[in-house]
């Protein structure tokens, strides 16, 4: 800890070329070092990591897939599931969270139920979801919804509760009605927490969609071996014993999750301009 603190002024005294400091360059370096280590370890058959196909082998398997419609269809299908489940979680979670944060009675009546349901992992819901819902898509969507809703809700409740009480007092003194306070104090006050809840929540939805697809199958319209969603794609590759393709699927999901988080972060900055100035 102390070493970290001490290094800050030392860096200021010893300026380096500006390019070296660019975050994008550092990101490239980070990934390149990781890939180089992996390639080396794989080729030298180091224990554990030596079992995995080398990045070069993975790349060889990946390139032809880029022209495969089925692969892109998997992207589309998983993304569609994630987005619909996630949007549903927001549509339900944000109003519920706001209601719990603003009404003591509503909170006391509903929160205990949510606290009991919350520790149940979304995957444990898969069998029930398959029985509950008429179509497989709805079942998967429901499991994704469950993955995101608790995080979103808890963030909304926490965010609304942490709004400075003086804002309410000031608003009330200046003549605000309850509705006005809700609209102009609570909503903007809770927005940063909604954004955080969304950022964490979208990550969980990707975890969940993959697992849901693995268990419940690709779900119709499989145009090629690679179709049926990214999760199903991994499962399919595993069944087929194609290890490089498993890794392709894993990396694809990683990239998809990263893009989703980046989009949400951008959206978050857009809707909370006052936080950008910190």
């Amino acid at each position, binding site marked *: 800890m102390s070493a970290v603190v001490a290094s800050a002024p030392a860096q200021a005294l010893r300026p380096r070329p500006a390019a070296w400091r660019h975050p994008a360059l550092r990101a490239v370096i980070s990934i390149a070092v990781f890939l180089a280590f992996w390639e080396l370890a794989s080729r030298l058959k180091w224990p554990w990591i030596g079992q995995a196909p080398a990045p070069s082998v993975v790349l060889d398997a990946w390139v032809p897939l880029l022209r495969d419609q089925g692969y892109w269809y998997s992207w589309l299908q998983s993304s569609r599931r994630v987005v619909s489940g996630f949007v549903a979680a927001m549509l339900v979670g944000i109003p519920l969270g706001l209601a719990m944060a603003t009404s003591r009675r509503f909170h006391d009546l509903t929160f205990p139920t949510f606290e009991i349901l919350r520790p149940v992992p979304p995957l444990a819901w898969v069998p029930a979801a398959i029985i509950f819902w008429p179509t497989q898509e709805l079942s998967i969507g429901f499991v994704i919804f469950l993955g995101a809703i608790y995080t979103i809700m808890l963030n909304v409740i926490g965010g609304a509760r942490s709004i400075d009480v003086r804002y309410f007092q*000031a608003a*009330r*003194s*200046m*003549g605000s*009605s309850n509705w006005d306070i809700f609209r102009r104090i609570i909503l903007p006050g809770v927005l940063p927490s909604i954004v955080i809840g969304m950022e964490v929540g979208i990550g969980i939805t990707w975890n969940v969609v993959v697992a849901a697809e693995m268990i419940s199958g690709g779900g119709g319209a499989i145009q090629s071996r690679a179709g049926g969603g990214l999760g199903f794609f991994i499962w399919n590759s595993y069944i087929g014993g194609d290890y490089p393709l498993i890794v392709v699927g894993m990396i694809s999901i990683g990239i998809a999750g990263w893009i989703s988080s980046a989009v949400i972060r951008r959206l978050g900055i857009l809707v*909370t301009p*006052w936080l950008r*100035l910190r």
Partner: protein
Amino acid sequence: MSEAVSLRAGIQPGEIQVSNVFKDYGDARFRTTVVKDCSFTIERSKLTVMIGPSGCGKSTLIRLLAGFERPDSGSILLNGAPVSGPARDRLVLFQESALFPWMTTWDNILYGPRARGEVTRETTEMAEFLLNKVGLKDFRRKYPMQLSGGMQRRAELARAMINNPAVMILDEPFRGLDAMTKELMWEYYSRLFEETRRTNFFVTTDIDEAIFLADRLFIMSNIPTQVRAALEIDIPRPRTQLALVENDRANEIKMQALSILHEEAMKSFSRGSKAAADFVEAYSKRVAKT
């Protein structure tokens, strides 16, 4: 700026009468009486400053005056009518900025009129006028976080003034500002008061601030809080910090106030309050300086 708009327009200064107010906190087992049989009058069109040891119950009094809380017994009257709940006729400026962080300076200032659905050409003109008055014309589109501490306090003054409160209540508003900015704010704020002659109630722990600003000075007792002494600060306005240092009357009042404060602080010191110990230390330094 149109001549029609003036700082005095629509001001109807109020008078607050506090009589025999009691306020307790805590449950049956651990009960603390914070305000005990407290009575005073905040006179119309005067700047009344309240000073007292930290933790003496000043903030509780403010919450009672503002209507955020109710007294256990006793009465608080504004222009003869009992105070019930928060309202625009008694606006509070809080210790640290309570500007809404998600609104620009302009939106913050217009908060009150919008909340009451009173946005007319006059209120917008008034907002414009106040924005100029507090010197934030070029900062109308900035968020509070982009403003310096002094600017934030001025924006908050404007946000309160546009509602034309009968009484403005200020809870250590300049605390946390650096010494230079603080003194500038004293001058700025007292000019503003002299122009409007609105009833102001100003709470502080800083004796120099108190004497610079006050028409009347209440020195509060240690907890449970009461008015220990009320001094008339009959020093002509406008005042400057430089003139006050050499003003015999000012120094006399200061010594008088400090000796009472010292006594009160010693009482809480003997009870073992850490805040009081700090207070005694800080003030003995000040006395040594003068």
